[in-house]
């Protein structure tokens, strides 16, 4: 069975990478066939949902069908430290880069040591 097939058979789970540094969580998602207009990102309470439609259907009779041109959907739990107002998304060549910045007050701070 195709592991990208989500439990809901009409949806496909996109592949993601999740990275973190002091300033943000960075999520990269493969969303081939998705345009800016067909992508929706919701940060609702403590969950983040990616939903995207694929509109690139092919005419004619199929000789090979390995791709599932289904809609994408995936939900993540996000920590309260993420500043929901400053989430930024970039979509390029079928790859989404989602920047989830941490709230400034919660960022680790360097404490200067004074020599007395």
């Amino acid at each position: 069975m195709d592991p990208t097939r989500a439990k809901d058979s009409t949806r496909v789970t996109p592949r993601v990478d999740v990275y973190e540094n002091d300033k943000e969580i960075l999520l990269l998602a493969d969303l081939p066939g998705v345009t800016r207009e067909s992508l929706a990102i919701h940060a609702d309470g403590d969950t983040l949902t990616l939903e995207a439609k694929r509109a690139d259907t092919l005419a004619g009779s199929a000789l090979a069908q390995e791709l599932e041109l289904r809609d994408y959907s995936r939900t993540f739990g996000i920590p309260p430290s993420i500043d929901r107002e400053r989430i930024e998304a970039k979509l390029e060549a079928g790859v989404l880069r989602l920047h989830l910045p941490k709230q400034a007050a919660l960022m680790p701070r360097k404490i200067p040591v004074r020599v007395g």
Partner: protein
Amino acid sequence: MFGNRSDFDRTLAIMDQLRRRMDRVFDDLDRGVGPEPATGGLPRVNVHDTGNAFVLRADLPGVQEKDLSLTLEQDVLTLSGQRRGDAPEGYAAYRQERAPYRFSRSFAFPAKVDTEKVLAELKDGVLTVTLEKAAEVKPRQISVRVA
């Protein structure tokens, strides 16, 4: 020595546990995605016959035009190239399902194609190749005369 752990060791162990728990703050609420399936190979494609042409579509998210090569020899189309890694520097990785890879796949079509009339377009991480059929194999409309 090992059997007699100090309070300090225990504190460190608890901190370690806490840190591991913190690592899981970005939870995947859906089922995770395993490795790409071994069968079929990458990239995965759809091929359609529209009557006048064959249309091949391949998912190539993150693949740059310069890293993609297409050749047509007789009736065999070969796609090859690579998807480069795009891991940002200075970040810790929590989840990595999108691996960089090299690929090469060849496709033979069930009818002769016109090698001069091949169109390839890479858009939104999807490659679409349209191969027009050779004139002699295109479907022809036959008009019926009334005698």
